[in-house]
Protein backbone atom coordinates (compact mmCIF):
# COMPACT_ATOMS: atom_id res chain seq x y z
CA UNK A 1 0.00 0.00 0.00
CA UNK A 2 1.20 3.51 -0.74
CA UNK A 3 2.32 6.02 1.85
CA UNK A 4 1.87 9.74 2.31
CA UNK A 5 4.99 11.94 2.50
CA UNK A 6 4.49 12.22 6.25
CA UNK A 7 4.36 8.44 6.68
CA UNK A 8 7.49 8.08 4.54
CA UNK A 9 9.49 10.57 6.56
CA UNK A 10 8.44 8.98 9.84
CA UNK A 11 9.12 5.45 8.52
CA UNK A 12 12.62 6.50 7.54
CA UNK A 13 13.23 8.08 10.93
CA UNK A 14 11.84 5.03 12.74
CA UNK A 15 13.87 2.56 10.69
CA UNK A 16 10.76 0.57 9.83
CA UNK A 17 7.49 1.07 8.01
CA UNK A 18 5.02 2.83 10.27
CA UNK A 19 1.29 3.43 9.88
CA UNK A 20 -1.19 6.05 11.08
CA UNK A 21 -2.34 5.53 14.65
CA UNK A 22 0.69 3.65 15.90
CA UNK A 23 3.28 5.11 18.23
CA UNK A 24 6.83 5.12 16.89
CA UNK A 25 10.17 6.22 18.24
CA UNK A 26 11.88 8.33 15.63
CA UNK A 27 15.31 9.91 15.29
CA UNK A 28 15.21 13.70 15.22
CA UNK A 29 17.25 15.91 12.89
CA UNK A 30 16.73 19.15 14.80
CA UNK A 31 15.56 20.04 18.31
CA UNK A 32 14.72 23.66 19.10
CA UNK A 33 13.71 25.75 22.12
CA UNK A 34 13.38 29.46 22.86
CA UNK A 35 13.93 31.79 25.81
CA UNK A 36 10.55 30.90 27.37
CA UNK A 37 10.60 27.15 26.93
CA UNK A 38 14.35 26.45 27.23
CA UNK A 39 14.71 26.99 30.99
CA UNK A 40 12.32 24.09 31.71
CA UNK A 41 13.97 21.89 29.05
CA UNK A 42 17.42 22.55 30.52
CA UNK A 43 16.26 21.85 34.06
CA UNK A 44 14.64 18.58 32.99
CA UNK A 45 17.62 17.58 30.82
CA UNK A 46 19.94 17.93 33.79
CA UNK A 47 17.85 15.46 35.79
CA UNK A 48 18.99 12.64 33.49
CA UNK A 49 22.55 12.86 34.80
CA UNK A 50 23.87 13.43 31.29
CA UNK A 51 26.44 16.14 30.74
CA UNK A 52 26.17 16.57 27.00
CA UNK A 53 23.23 16.84 24.62
CA UNK A 54 23.07 14.06 22.02
CA UNK A 55 24.48 16.23 19.20
CA UNK A 56 25.17 19.95 19.69
CA UNK A 57 24.89 20.64 15.95
CA UNK A 58 21.27 19.48 16.08
CA UNK A 59 20.20 21.31 19.23
CA UNK A 60 19.13 24.91 18.65
CA UNK A 61 18.37 27.74 21.07
CA UNK A 62 16.76 30.96 19.85
CA UNK A 63 16.27 34.05 22.00
CA UNK A 64 13.16 35.71 20.56
CA UNK A 65 10.07 35.88 22.77
CA UNK A 66 11.01 38.37 25.47
CA UNK A 67 14.30 39.69 24.04
CA UNK A 68 16.01 42.10 23.91
CA UNK A 69 15.15 41.35 27.55
CA UNK A 70 11.98 43.19 28.52
CA UNK A 71 12.66 43.00 32.26
CA UNK A 72 14.88 41.32 34.83
CA UNK A 73 13.05 38.00 34.84
CA UNK A 74 13.16 37.82 31.06
CA UNK A 75 16.87 38.57 31.21
CA UNK A 76 17.38 35.75 33.71
CA UNK A 77 15.56 33.25 31.48
CA UNK A 78 17.56 34.31 28.42
CA UNK A 79 20.74 34.00 30.46
CA UNK A 80 19.97 30.42 31.53
CA UNK A 81 19.55 29.53 27.86
CA UNK A 82 22.58 31.43 26.63
CA UNK A 83 24.91 29.87 29.19
CA UNK A 84 23.69 26.35 28.55
CA UNK A 85 23.96 26.83 24.78
CA UNK A 86 27.55 28.04 25.12
CA UNK A 87 28.52 25.28 27.53
CA UNK A 88 27.11 22.68 25.12
CA UNK A 89 28.49 24.31 21.98
CA UNK A 90 24.93 24.13 20.64
CA UNK A 91 23.50 26.27 17.84
CA UNK A 92 22.71 29.74 19.18
CA UNK A 93 22.47 33.22 17.74
CA UNK A 94 22.80 36.27 19.94
CA UNK A 95 20.43 39.23 19.80
CA UNK A 96 21.57 41.25 16.80
CA UNK A 97 22.16 38.11 14.76
CA UNK A 98 18.94 36.32 15.53
CA UNK A 99 15.25 37.00 15.25
CA UNK A 100 12.11 34.89 15.49
CA UNK A 101 12.94 31.18 15.58
CA UNK A 102 10.73 30.11 12.67
CA UNK A 103 12.24 32.80 10.46
CA UNK A 104 15.84 32.26 11.57
CA UNK A 105 16.06 28.48 11.24
CA UNK A 106 15.03 28.33 7.56
CA UNK A 107 17.20 31.38 6.78
CA UNK A 108 20.18 29.45 8.07
CA UNK A 109 19.41 26.40 5.98
CA UNK A 110 18.65 24.23 9.01
CA UNK A 111 15.21 23.01 7.95
CA UNK A 112 15.38 20.60 5.03
CA UNK A 113 13.09 18.27 3.11
CA UNK A 114 12.64 14.82 4.61
CA UNK A 115 13.78 15.82 8.08
CA UNK A 116 12.11 15.28 11.44
CA UNK A 117 12.15 18.55 13.39
CA UNK A 118 10.68 19.23 16.81
CA UNK A 119 10.54 22.46 18.74
CA UNK A 120 9.31 23.59 22.14
CA UNK A 121 7.04 26.04 20.41
CA UNK A 122 3.70 25.17 18.88
CA UNK A 123 4.48 26.92 15.59
CA UNK A 124 7.34 24.53 14.95
CA UNK A 125 4.96 23.07 12.38
CA UNK A 126 6.24 25.90 10.14
CA UNK A 127 9.00 23.78 8.62
CA UNK A 128 6.51 21.58 6.83
CA UNK A 129 6.74 24.29 4.17
CA UNK A 130 10.08 22.68 3.31
CA UNK A 131 8.73 19.13 3.14
CA UNK A 132 9.91 18.28 6.67
CA UNK A 133 7.86 16.53 9.31
CA UNK A 134 7.91 19.19 11.98
CA UNK A 135 5.81 19.70 15.05
CA UNK A 136 5.65 21.50 18.36
CA UNK A 137 6.02 19.83 21.73
CA UNK A 138 6.45 20.88 25.33
CA UNK A 139 9.69 21.59 27.13
CA UNK A 140 9.96 18.17 28.76
CA UNK A 141 9.58 16.33 25.45
CA UNK A 142 12.36 18.52 24.09
CA UNK A 143 14.51 17.72 27.13
CA UNK A 144 14.04 14.01 26.45
CA UNK A 145 15.09 14.51 22.82
CA UNK A 146 18.11 16.57 23.81
CA UNK A 147 19.16 13.53 25.85
CA UNK A 148 18.19 10.70 23.50
CA UNK A 149 18.22 12.14 19.99
CA UNK A 150 14.82 10.56 19.50
CA UNK A 151 11.22 11.30 20.32
CA UNK A 152 7.96 9.40 20.20
CA UNK A 153 5.16 10.30 17.87
CA UNK A 154 1.80 8.85 17.14
CA UNK A 155 1.92 8.59 13.35
CA UNK A 156 -0.78 11.01 12.21
CA UNK A 157 -3.36 10.26 9.57
CA UNK A 158 -3.04 12.70 6.68
CA UNK A 159 -5.79 15.01 5.45
CA UNK A 160 -5.16 16.15 1.91
CA UNK A 161 -6.16 19.68 0.94
CA UNK A 162 -6.39 20.38 -2.77
CA UNK A 163 -6.62 24.01 -3.86
CA UNK A 164 -7.88 24.81 -7.35
CA UNK A 165 -7.71 28.04 -9.31
CA UNK A 166 -5.51 31.10 -9.66
CA UNK A 167 -5.49 33.41 -6.65
CA UNK A 168 -6.87 36.89 -7.31
CA UNK A 169 -4.45 39.84 -6.96
CA UNK A 170 -3.86 40.78 -3.33
CA UNK A 171 -4.80 37.36 -1.96
CA UNK A 172 -2.04 35.16 -0.55
CA UNK A 173 -0.92 32.40 1.79
CA UNK A 174 -2.47 34.01 4.87
CA UNK A 175 -5.86 34.19 3.18
CA UNK A 176 -5.58 30.56 2.06
CA UNK A 177 -4.87 29.28 5.54
CA UNK A 178 -7.46 31.53 7.23
CA UNK A 179 -10.02 30.34 4.70
CA UNK A 180 -9.09 26.71 5.40
CA UNK A 181 -9.34 27.13 9.19
CA UNK A 182 -12.62 28.99 8.75
CA UNK A 183 -13.98 26.04 6.79
CA UNK A 184 -12.79 23.18 9.02
CA UNK A 185 -12.60 24.86 12.46
CA UNK A 186 -9.92 25.11 15.12
CA UNK A 187 -10.05 21.38 15.73
CA UNK A 188 -10.81 20.45 12.11
CA UNK A 189 -7.50 18.64 11.68
CA UNK A 190 -6.98 17.53 15.29
CA UNK A 191 -3.91 15.24 15.61
CA UNK A 192 -3.65 14.94 11.80
CA UNK A 193 -1.07 15.98 9.21
CA UNK A 194 -2.39 18.56 6.73
CA UNK A 195 -0.95 17.99 3.26
CA UNK A 196 -1.32 21.06 1.03
CA UNK A 197 -1.54 20.38 -2.70
CA UNK A 198 -3.12 21.55 -5.94
CA UNK A 199 -2.33 23.98 -8.73
CA UNK A 200 -2.80 27.00 -6.43
CA UNK A 201 -0.14 25.61 -4.12
CA UNK A 202 2.19 24.83 -7.03
CA UNK A 203 1.99 28.49 -8.00
CA UNK A 204 2.40 29.77 -4.43
CA UNK A 205 5.86 31.07 -3.48
CA UNK A 206 7.69 29.41 -0.59
CA UNK A 207 7.01 32.36 1.74
CA UNK A 208 3.27 31.86 1.28
CA UNK A 209 3.67 28.17 2.03
CA UNK A 210 5.58 29.03 5.21
CA UNK A 211 2.65 31.18 6.34
CA UNK A 212 0.25 28.31 5.71
CA UNK A 213 2.31 25.61 7.43
CA UNK A 214 2.84 28.00 10.34
CA UNK A 215 -0.89 28.04 11.10
CA UNK A 216 -1.59 24.30 10.72
CA UNK A 217 -1.60 24.16 14.54
CA UNK A 218 -4.48 26.65 14.50
CA UNK A 219 -6.61 23.89 12.95
CA UNK A 220 -5.44 21.53 15.69
CA UNK A 221 -3.08 19.71 13.32
CA UNK A 222 0.08 17.96 14.41
CA UNK A 223 1.84 19.13 11.28
CA UNK A 224 1.34 20.75 7.90
CA UNK A 225 3.38 19.68 4.92
CA UNK A 226 4.10 20.55 1.29
CA UNK A 227 5.86 18.62 -1.44
CA UNK A 228 9.38 19.58 -2.45
CA UNK A 229 9.39 21.25 -5.88
CA UNK A 230 11.59 23.61 -7.92
CA UNK A 231 10.49 26.56 -5.82
CA UNK A 232 11.57 24.76 -2.64
CA UNK A 233 14.89 23.77 -4.14
CA UNK A 234 15.60 27.26 -5.43
CA UNK A 235 14.77 28.78 -2.02
CA UNK A 236 17.06 26.33 -0.23
CA UNK A 237 19.89 26.77 -2.76
CA UNK A 238 20.14 30.37 -1.54
CA UNK A 239 20.75 29.34 2.07
CA UNK A 240 22.56 25.99 2.09
CA UNK A 241 24.57 23.54 0.06
CA UNK A 242 23.63 20.58 2.21
CA UNK A 243 21.98 17.65 0.46
CA UNK A 244 18.57 16.36 1.44
CA UNK A 245 16.14 13.59 0.70
CA UNK A 246 12.62 14.83 -0.07
CA UNK A 247 9.55 12.65 0.40
CA UNK A 248 6.63 12.53 -2.01
CA UNK A 249 3.23 10.96 -1.43
CA UNK A 250 2.51 7.81 -3.43
CA UNK A 251 -0.41 7.99 -5.88
CA UNK A 252 -2.18 5.26 -3.89
CA UNK A 253 -1.43 6.77 -0.47
CA UNK A 254 -4.31 6.61 2.00
CA UNK A 255 -5.84 9.83 3.28
CA UNK A 256 -8.19 10.26 6.19
CA UNK A 257 -10.03 12.80 4.07
CA UNK A 258 -9.54 14.78 0.91
CA UNK A 259 -10.83 18.36 1.03
CA UNK A 260 -11.05 20.37 -2.20
CA UNK A 261 -11.37 24.14 -2.43
CA UNK A 262 -11.85 26.41 -5.42
CA UNK A 263 -10.03 29.59 -4.41
CA UNK A 264 -10.19 31.48 -7.69
CA UNK A 265 -12.59 34.06 -6.21
CA UNK A 266 -11.09 34.19 -2.70
CA UNK A 267 -11.12 37.62 -1.07
CA UNK A 268 -8.69 39.17 1.43
CA UNK A 269 -9.79 37.73 4.77
CA UNK A 270 -9.70 38.50 8.47
CA UNK A 271 -10.30 36.35 11.55
CA UNK A 272 -12.36 38.29 14.07
CA UNK A 273 -12.05 37.73 17.85
CA UNK A 274 -11.50 35.32 19.57
CA UNK A 275 -10.75 32.32 17.36
CA UNK A 276 -8.70 31.97 14.16
CA UNK A 277 -11.72 30.20 12.64
CA UNK A 278 -13.98 33.28 12.91
CA UNK A 279 -13.20 34.21 9.30
CA UNK A 280 -14.84 36.94 7.20
CA UNK A 281 -13.98 38.94 4.08
CA UNK A 282 -12.04 42.03 5.20
CA UNK A 283 -14.31 44.36 3.26
CA UNK A 284 -17.52 42.80 4.65
CA UNK A 285 -17.08 43.41 8.36
CA UNK A 286 -18.49 46.93 8.46
CA UNK A 287 -16.92 49.84 10.31
CA UNK A 288 -14.56 48.06 12.70
CA UNK A 289 -12.14 50.63 14.13
CA UNK A 290 -8.71 49.63 15.37
CA UNK A 291 -6.31 51.21 17.85
CA UNK A 292 -3.24 49.33 16.73
CA UNK A 293 -1.86 47.37 13.79
CA UNK A 294 0.99 44.89 14.26
CA UNK A 295 2.90 43.68 11.23
CA UNK A 296 5.46 40.92 11.72
CA UNK A 297 5.81 37.55 13.53
CA UNK A 298 6.77 34.07 12.36
CA UNK A 299 3.60 34.08 10.25
CA UNK A 300 4.13 37.27 8.21
CA UNK A 301 7.44 38.82 9.19
CA UNK A 302 9.49 37.90 6.15
CA UNK A 303 10.86 40.23 3.50
CA UNK A 304 8.12 39.46 0.99
CA UNK A 305 5.51 40.43 3.61
CA UNK A 306 7.26 43.71 4.32
CA UNK A 307 7.49 44.47 0.61
CA UNK A 308 3.71 44.05 0.32
CA UNK A 309 3.20 46.35 3.27
CA UNK A 310 5.57 48.98 1.86
CA UNK A 311 3.70 48.99 -1.44
CA UNK A 312 0.54 50.00 0.39
CA UNK A 313 2.15 52.44 2.84
CA UNK A 314 4.34 54.22 0.30
CA UNK A 315 3.16 57.83 -0.04
CA UNK A 316 0.43 57.31 2.55
CA UNK A 317 0.08 58.07 6.25
CA UNK A 318 -0.92 55.79 9.09
CA UNK A 319 -4.29 56.96 10.44
CA UNK A 320 -4.00 59.45 13.31
CA UNK A 321 -5.81 57.13 15.73
CA UNK A 322 -3.67 54.10 14.95
CA UNK A 323 -0.35 52.90 16.33
CA UNK A 324 1.29 50.88 13.58
CA UNK A 325 4.16 48.63 14.70
CA UNK A 326 6.27 46.91 12.06
CA UNK A 327 8.61 44.18 13.28
CA UNK A 328 11.00 42.31 10.98
CA UNK A 329 11.08 38.53 11.43
CA UNK A 330 14.86 38.48 11.79
CA UNK A 331 17.98 40.59 11.72
CA UNK A 332 18.56 39.44 8.12
CA UNK A 333 15.09 40.63 7.14
CA UNK A 334 15.76 43.93 8.92
CA UNK A 335 19.03 44.47 7.08
CA UNK A 336 17.49 43.76 3.71
CA UNK A 337 14.49 45.97 4.46
CA UNK A 338 16.88 48.81 5.18
CA UNK A 339 18.78 48.24 1.96
CA UNK A 340 15.60 48.23 -0.08
CA UNK A 341 14.34 51.41 1.54
CA UNK A 342 11.34 49.67 3.12
CA UNK A 343 12.22 50.84 6.61
CA UNK A 344 12.18 54.44 5.38
CA UNK A 345 8.73 53.97 3.89
CA UNK A 346 7.41 52.59 7.18
CA UNK A 347 8.86 55.40 9.24
CA UNK A 348 7.80 58.13 6.79
CA UNK A 349 4.26 56.80 7.01
CA UNK A 350 4.24 57.16 10.78
CA UNK A 351 4.77 53.52 11.68
CA UNK A 352 7.23 52.22 14.27
CA UNK A 353 10.12 50.13 12.90
CA UNK A 354 11.29 47.77 15.62
CA UNK A 355 14.11 45.32 16.06
CA UNK A 356 13.15 41.68 15.54
CA UNK A 357 11.24 40.05 18.40
CA UNK A 358 8.06 38.10 19.13
CA UNK A 359 7.13 40.97 21.45
CA UNK A 360 3.46 41.91 21.07
CA UNK A 361 2.43 38.71 19.23
CA UNK A 362 2.08 36.93 22.56
CA UNK A 363 1.36 40.02 24.64
CA UNK A 364 4.97 40.17 25.81
CA UNK A 365 5.99 43.77 25.22
CA UNK A 366 6.43 46.35 22.42
CA UNK A 367 2.72 46.91 21.92
CA UNK A 368 0.62 45.28 24.65
CA UNK A 369 -3.10 46.17 24.52
CA UNK A 370 -5.12 47.99 27.17
CA UNK A 371 -8.64 47.01 28.22
CA UNK A 372 -11.12 47.58 25.43
CA UNK A 373 -8.50 48.15 22.73
CA UNK A 374 -8.60 46.47 19.35
CA UNK A 375 -5.62 45.42 17.27
CA UNK A 376 -5.38 44.03 13.76
CA UNK A 377 -2.32 41.84 13.49
CA UNK A 378 -0.54 39.69 10.92
CA UNK A 379 0.18 37.12 13.66
CA UNK A 380 -1.50 33.75 14.09
CA UNK A 381 -3.59 33.78 17.29
CA UNK A 382 -6.45 35.98 18.40
CA UNK A 383 -7.34 34.17 21.60
CA UNK A 384 -8.70 36.18 24.48
CA UNK A 385 -5.87 37.98 26.26
CA UNK A 386 -3.31 36.95 23.64
CA UNK A 387 -1.91 40.44 23.09
CA UNK A 388 -2.73 42.05 26.39
CA UNK A 389 -5.82 42.70 28.52
CA UNK A 390 -8.47 39.97 28.49
CA UNK A 391 -11.00 42.51 27.27
CA UNK A 392 -8.81 43.58 24.34
CA UNK A 393 -9.53 42.23 20.87
CA UNK A 394 -7.22 40.84 18.21
CA UNK A 395 -8.13 40.49 14.53
CA UNK A 396 -5.89 38.41 12.25
CA UNK A 397 -5.11 39.26 8.64
CA UNK A 398 -2.43 39.19 5.97
CA UNK A 399 0.10 42.00 5.39
CA UNK A 400 -1.87 43.91 2.75
CA UNK A 401 -5.03 44.12 4.82
CA UNK A 402 -2.91 45.13 7.81
CA UNK A 403 -1.33 48.00 5.85
CA UNK A 404 -4.65 49.21 4.45
CA UNK A 405 -6.22 49.03 7.90
CA UNK A 406 -3.37 51.07 9.37
CA UNK A 407 -4.04 53.82 6.82
CA UNK A 408 -7.82 53.84 7.05
CA UNK A 409 -8.15 53.26 10.78
CA UNK A 410 -10.74 50.57 10.25
CA UNK A 411 -10.59 47.00 8.94
CA UNK A 412 -10.32 47.02 5.15
CA UNK A 413 -8.40 45.60 2.21
CA UNK A 414 -6.25 47.79 -0.11
CA UNK A 415 -9.23 47.94 -2.50
CA UNK A 416 -10.88 50.35 -0.05
CA UNK A 417 -8.02 52.83 -0.45
CA UNK A 418 -9.03 53.84 -3.96
Amino acid at each position, binding site marked *: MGQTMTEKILSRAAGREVHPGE*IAEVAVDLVMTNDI*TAPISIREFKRTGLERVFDPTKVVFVPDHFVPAKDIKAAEQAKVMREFAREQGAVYWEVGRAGIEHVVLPENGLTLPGQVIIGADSHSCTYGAFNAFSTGM*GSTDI*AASMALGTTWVRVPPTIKFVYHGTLPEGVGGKDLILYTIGQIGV*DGALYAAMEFTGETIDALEVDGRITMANMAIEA*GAKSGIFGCDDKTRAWLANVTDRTYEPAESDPDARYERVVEFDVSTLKPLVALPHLPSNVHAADDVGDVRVDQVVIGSCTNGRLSDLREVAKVLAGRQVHANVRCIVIPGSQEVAKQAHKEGLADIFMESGAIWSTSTCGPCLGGYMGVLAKGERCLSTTNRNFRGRMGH*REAEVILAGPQVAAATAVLGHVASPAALN
Partner: protein
Amino acid sequence: MLIRGRVWKFGDDVDTDVIIPARYLLTSDAKELAEHVMEDLDPDFVGKVRPGDIIVAGKNFGCGSSREHAPIAIKGAGVSAVVAASYARIFFRNSINIGLPVVEAPEAALEAEDGDILEIDTDEGAVLNTRTGRSYSSARYDDYIQQIIDAGGLMEAVTRRVQARLAEERQA
Protein backbone atom coordinates in the same frame (compact mmCIF):
# COMPACT_ATOMS: atom_id res chain seq x y z
CA MET B 1 -5.10 5.69 40.57
CA LEU B 2 -8.28 6.86 42.32
CA ILE B 3 -9.16 10.54 42.17
CA ARG B 4 -12.11 12.23 43.83
CA GLY B 5 -12.83 15.91 43.50
CA ARG B 6 -15.19 18.79 43.01
CA VAL B 7 -15.94 20.01 39.49
CA TRP B 8 -15.14 23.38 37.90
CA LYS B 9 -16.74 23.40 34.49
CA PHE B 10 -15.41 25.18 31.39
CA GLY B 11 -16.42 25.21 27.71
CA ASP B 12 -14.89 24.16 24.38
CA ASP B 13 -11.51 25.23 22.93
CA VAL B 14 -10.02 26.46 26.21
CA ASP B 15 -6.61 27.67 25.00
CA THR B 16 -3.29 27.86 26.79
CA ASP B 17 -3.32 31.67 26.58
CA VAL B 18 -6.23 31.76 29.01
CA ILE B 19 -4.95 28.84 31.12
CA ILE B 20 -1.78 30.85 31.75
CA PRO B 21 -1.38 34.17 29.90
CA ALA B 22 2.04 34.80 28.32
CA ARG B 23 2.64 37.81 30.55
CA TYR B 24 3.28 35.34 33.38
CA LEU B 25 5.72 33.14 31.47
CA LEU B 26 8.64 34.74 33.27
CA THR B 27 8.97 31.79 35.61
CA SER B 28 8.58 28.04 35.50
CA ASP B 29 7.81 27.80 39.20
CA ALA B 30 4.56 25.88 39.72
CA LYS B 31 3.38 27.90 42.72
CA GLU B 32 3.99 31.27 41.02
CA LEU B 33 2.25 30.14 37.84
CA ALA B 34 -0.66 28.71 39.83
CA GLU B 35 -1.47 32.19 41.15
CA HIS B 36 -2.72 33.10 37.66
CA VAL B 37 -4.24 29.87 36.39
CA MET B 38 -7.37 30.41 34.25
CA GLU B 39 -7.19 34.11 35.09
CA ASP B 40 -8.31 35.42 31.69
CA LEU B 41 -11.33 33.12 31.63
CA ASP B 42 -12.41 33.51 35.24
CA PRO B 43 -10.42 36.03 37.32
CA ASP B 44 -11.92 34.58 40.52
CA PHE B 45 -10.92 31.00 39.78
CA VAL B 46 -7.63 31.17 41.67
CA GLY B 47 -9.46 32.24 44.82
CA LYS B 48 -12.09 29.52 44.51
CA VAL B 49 -10.17 26.42 43.47
CA ARG B 50 -9.17 24.04 46.27
CA PRO B 51 -6.58 21.25 46.28
CA GLY B 52 -8.11 18.09 44.84
CA ASP B 53 -10.64 19.87 42.61
CA ILE B 54 -11.18 18.72 39.04
CA ILE B 55 -11.32 20.85 35.90
CA VAL B 56 -13.99 19.67 33.43
CA ALA B 57 -14.13 21.02 29.89
CA GLY B 58 -15.45 20.42 26.39
CA LYS B 59 -13.55 19.66 23.23
CA ASN B 60 -10.00 20.65 22.26
CA PHE B 61 -8.90 21.55 25.79
CA GLY B 62 -5.44 23.17 25.91
CA CYS B 63 -5.28 24.27 22.29
CA GLY B 64 -2.74 26.86 21.18
CA SER B 65 0.76 27.37 22.48
CA SER B 66 3.06 24.53 23.50
CA ARG B 67 3.79 26.16 26.84
CA GLU B 68 4.23 23.47 29.45
CA HIS B 69 3.51 26.23 31.93
CA ALA B 70 -0.21 25.51 31.31
CA PRO B 71 -0.39 22.01 32.86
CA ILE B 72 2.27 23.09 35.41
CA ALA B 73 -0.02 25.95 36.52
CA ILE B 74 -3.05 23.66 36.74
CA LYS B 75 -1.14 21.07 38.72
CA GLY B 76 0.43 23.79 40.86
CA ALA B 77 -3.04 25.00 41.85
CA GLY B 78 -3.67 21.55 43.32
CA VAL B 79 -6.08 20.44 40.62
CA SER B 80 -6.11 16.65 40.78
CA ALA B 81 -7.22 15.90 37.23
CA VAL B 82 -8.69 17.33 34.04
CA VAL B 83 -11.68 15.62 32.42
CA ALA B 84 -12.46 16.79 28.89
CA ALA B 85 -14.28 15.70 25.75
CA SER B 86 -11.00 15.93 23.84
CA TYR B 87 -7.57 17.50 24.14
CA ALA B 88 -5.22 19.46 21.95
CA ARG B 89 -2.32 17.10 21.44
CA ILE B 90 0.59 19.13 22.83
CA PHE B 91 -1.30 19.88 26.03
CA PHE B 92 -2.17 16.19 26.40
CA ARG B 93 1.49 15.15 25.99
CA ASN B 94 2.73 17.83 28.34
CA SER B 95 0.27 16.74 31.02
CA ILE B 96 1.28 13.09 30.77
CA ASN B 97 4.94 14.09 30.82
CA ILE B 98 4.63 16.07 34.06
CA GLY B 99 2.17 13.74 35.77
CA LEU B 100 -1.11 15.69 35.57
CA PRO B 101 -3.90 13.14 35.03
CA VAL B 102 -5.82 13.98 31.85
CA VAL B 103 -8.96 11.95 31.28
CA GLU B 104 -10.82 11.85 27.98
CA ALA B 105 -14.50 11.17 28.70
CA PRO B 106 -16.86 13.16 26.44
CA GLU B 107 -20.16 12.24 28.10
CA ALA B 108 -18.89 12.67 31.63
CA ALA B 109 -17.56 16.09 30.61
CA LEU B 110 -20.80 17.11 28.93
CA GLU B 111 -23.08 16.15 31.83
CA ALA B 112 -20.98 17.35 34.76
CA GLU B 113 -21.86 20.66 36.38
CA ASP B 114 -20.04 23.08 38.65
CA GLY B 115 -19.89 21.65 42.16
CA ASP B 116 -20.51 18.01 41.18
CA ILE B 117 -18.25 15.39 42.68
CA LEU B 118 -16.48 13.08 40.24
CA GLU B 119 -14.81 9.82 41.18
CA ILE B 120 -12.22 8.76 38.64
CA ASP B 121 -10.53 5.37 38.44
CA THR B 122 -7.74 5.88 35.93
CA ASP B 123 -6.75 2.18 35.91
CA GLU B 124 -10.26 1.02 35.12
CA GLY B 125 -10.99 3.93 32.80
CA ALA B 126 -14.12 4.88 34.72
CA VAL B 127 -15.67 8.16 35.84
CA LEU B 128 -18.59 8.36 38.30
CA ASN B 129 -20.69 11.46 38.88
CA THR B 130 -21.97 11.14 42.48
CA ARG B 131 -24.80 13.65 41.97
CA THR B 132 -26.42 11.83 39.06
CA GLY B 133 -25.12 8.40 39.96
CA ARG B 134 -24.11 7.90 36.35
CA SER B 135 -20.85 6.28 35.45
CA TYR B 136 -18.97 6.70 32.22
CA SER B 137 -16.00 5.03 30.61
CA SER B 138 -12.96 7.04 29.65
CA ALA B 139 -10.52 6.50 26.79
CA ARG B 140 -7.68 4.09 27.60
CA TYR B 141 -4.08 5.13 27.26
CA ASP B 142 -1.78 3.44 24.78
CA ASP B 143 0.76 1.09 26.33
CA TYR B 144 3.56 3.48 25.46
CA ILE B 145 1.84 6.36 27.25
CA GLN B 146 0.89 4.12 30.17
CA GLN B 147 4.58 3.32 30.63
CA ILE B 148 5.36 7.01 30.99
CA ILE B 149 2.54 7.38 33.51
CA ASP B 150 3.72 4.32 35.44
CA ALA B 151 7.28 5.65 35.54
CA GLY B 152 5.94 8.85 37.15
CA GLY B 153 6.54 11.10 34.15
CA LEU B 154 8.64 11.32 31.01
CA MET B 155 11.92 12.41 32.57
CA GLU B 156 11.73 9.59 35.11
CA ALA B 157 11.36 7.15 32.21
CA VAL B 158 14.15 8.80 30.23
CA THR B 159 16.48 8.98 33.23
CA ARG B 160 16.05 5.25 33.79
CA ARG B 161 17.00 4.60 30.18
CA VAL B 162 19.96 6.92 30.30
CA GLN B 163 21.24 5.50 33.58
CA ALA B 164 20.92 1.94 32.27
CA ARG B 165 22.88 2.92 29.18
CA LEU B 166 25.59 4.62 31.24
CA ALA B 167 25.87 1.56 33.48
CA GLU B 168 26.27 -0.66 30.42
CA GLU B 169 28.96 1.61 29.03
CA ARG B 170 30.84 1.48 32.31
CA GLN B 171 30.79 -2.32 32.28
CA ALA B 172 31.93 -2.61 28.67
